[in-house]
């Protein structure tokens, strides 16, 4: 691209002719861009606000008044917490989520280390396999996994959801590997000269340097298992093991869903994610931006 002859052909005439009008055009352009951006932002933010406002409406107001609630029905929240086993589901969700985070961080950092900091024959070929598994839709392995867990007697327990993260997640391995590769080799070499083992280097050199990307992995693992629906749906039976997502869907499917209560649970379930987002914003954005950039 840089060598494109068209770009090299700079013509001073054109530049001079253009200079006069540029400022005006720019101001005009900027205004247009702002207007479009604000319109789009409204479209993105309004459903969000509606979720909150809906959770404060009475059942009948919910579908007569599309706007702001006339009276704030805070009791939707107290009802959500008392009539819906919110805290039980929350506890289950938290358990599964933390197992996912712990499992992913332990296994993926080790695996990524093996794929980036040690030179071994066939490494990159094997890594391609990791990337390929990233492309597998869950549905492809869902049924045999279900049957495998069924044979193990794991259906109806947390195990299918909490054990698998300990065996690595291709996307996290990819993210971590990209980061580990960028750490200068010399650091490892120096440690090696001091007689450090690979594990020691991993633990004392690489991990401390990788806090931001580990943070990103934690965030992604949290987001993925916090809102996961199909996993709990397929693998759990007992209502007392349900996660928030599954629990909400179940009360929705009954004959008399109570919408304001559902929306209140919805807000309560989204809120922790929002708080974490605002606290750790830069890791979110960095992590996501990082994932799209090719090596």
């Amino acid at each position, binding site marked *: 691209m840089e060598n494109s002859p068209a770009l090299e052909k700079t013509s001073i005439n054109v530049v001079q002719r253009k200079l006069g009008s540029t400022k005006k055009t720019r101001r005009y352009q900027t205004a247009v861009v702002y207007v479009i951006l604000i319109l789009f932002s409204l479209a993105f933010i309004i459903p969000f606000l509606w979720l909150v406002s809906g959770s404060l409406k009475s*059942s*009948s107001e*919910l*579908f007569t008044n599309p706007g702001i609630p006339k009276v704030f029905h805070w009791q939707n929240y107290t009802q959500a917490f008392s009539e819906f086993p919110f805290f039980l589901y929350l506890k289950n969700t938290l358990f599964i989520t933390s197992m996912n985070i712990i499992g992913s961080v*332990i*296994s993926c950092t*080790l695996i990524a280390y093996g794929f980036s900091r040690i030179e071994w024959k066939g490494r990159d070929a094997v890594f391609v396999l990791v990337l390929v598994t990233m492309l597998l839709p869950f549905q492809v392995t869902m049924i045999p996994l*279900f049957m495998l867990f*069924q*044979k*193990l*007697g*794991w*259906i*109806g*327990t*947390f*195990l299918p959801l*909490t*054990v698998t993260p*300990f065996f690595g997640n291709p996307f996290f391995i990819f993210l971590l590997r990209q980061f580990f590769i960028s750490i200068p080799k010399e650091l490892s070499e120096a440690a090696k000269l001091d007689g450090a*083992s*690979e*594990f*020691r280097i*991993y633990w004392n050199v690489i991990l401390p340097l990788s806090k931001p990307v580990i943070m990103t992995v934690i965030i992604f693992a949290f987001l993925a298992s916090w809102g996961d629906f199909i996993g709990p*749906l397929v693998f759990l*039976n*007992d*209502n*007392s093991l349900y996660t928030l997502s599954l629990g909400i869907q*179940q*009360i929705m*499917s*009954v*004959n*008399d*869903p*109570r*919408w304001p209560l559902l929306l209140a649970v919805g807000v309560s379930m989204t809120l922790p994610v929002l708080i974490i987002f605002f606290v750790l914003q830069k890791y979110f954005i960095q992590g996501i931006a990082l994932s799209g950039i090719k090596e």
Partner: protein
Amino acid sequence: MKKAFSLLLMMLLVVSLFLTGCSGNKASNGASGGGGKNFTYWYPWGGDSEKWDKWRMAEFEKDNKGYKIKATYVPPDGGISNGKLLASITGGNPPDVVISNEYATAYSLAVQGALTPLDDLLKKNKFDDSGVLESFKPLMKYKDKTYLFPQDSNVNLLYYNVKMFKEAGLDPDNPPKTIEELDAAAEKLTKVNNNKIDRLGFIPWLDAGDESYLWGWVFGANFYDPEKNKVELNDPKLQAAYKWMDTYAVKYNPEKIKTFTSGFGGAFSPDHPFFTGKVAMTLNGNWFANAIKIYSPNTEYRVAPIPTPEGGREKATTLGTNVFMIPKGAKNPDAAMKFILAGVQPKVLADNINTWRSISIFKEPSDAIKWDKENDQVYQVVREVSSSPGAGHPALTSVSKEMSNELKLLRDSVIYNHKDPAPLLKAAEDKLQKQADKTK
């Protein structure tokens, strides 16, 4: 190197410890040890039904000293239509007894061999089935063996708004009995102004009318012949049912109807279209009377048997039966059977019926039923319909769930695209027959 090994070992140790820890948990979660007086029970309902069932369980434990029920709420239907029960059976850890509101799917489990036959257990407990209403007997048995035990049932009725009937010049004492009369009444009750629907007299596929088997059954279709293991969808009566529904779709655009009736208004909310006056007549179960009492006490309504076309079933209804079953491999079938039979004891049954207005599976009405038998119009119609030969359980086959979904899709094709139902029914029949042939 050594460190790495030890770390890995540790990791595996943690994981395996964790696994065993959880499996330990699970063992107590399942049937805790064979025999004895402990058993596990799966039920499909939350809300008020759950409260009622908990009362029932407590009664059982009170009456049968030493018995302990480990009850689990498994929505949406006791885990039978989403593979949960099957998984627990093949995983070697099934519950001892399950109750489900999806009798057809439960029946298909019996056909697939996933359930324990109940005959010996029933004999041991000296249960006599001569008192059971005839309409429940086919449901209980597959190939001469009993697999399902009905607890209670529900019938579908035509609910109509008395005030609207009077306004439209119709006689509320004389509700429509035939499909023609229903159509005529619907026409009179409908209010459309400038292409905008204000009120619809009747929508065939609203509420219970949405159920896959109801209208076909009313029109006289059988769906399936258990004797010959033959799927019977390519039936002129079934075609007629869908063609009739399409007349409503042609008259009022079904998308518009759906827009018009959509809302959050389930039957247990004040915004059900029958309560808000958006529809004047609708089909629903006997429990709907209770919903009206709670959410729209000012709606003056009456009920009637579902209108019938010529050649159809009179006073017809599909029965919404709740059934007990004992999965294959259950560890404590004796206790399970004790619990099942306790559920149809007069005391428990009567309370069930008084609360939910459901119907008994027995011929003799229990004395404990406290309904106002003389003056309760709903009660009279419920009795009339439930004892009619038109009350039944269609599609007792291994493919009932799939058939139900196929029929719903087919209905949508007819009402949205005005497709001819005949070739669609033929295609569905072929597809399902192939499936049914696979079960011997």
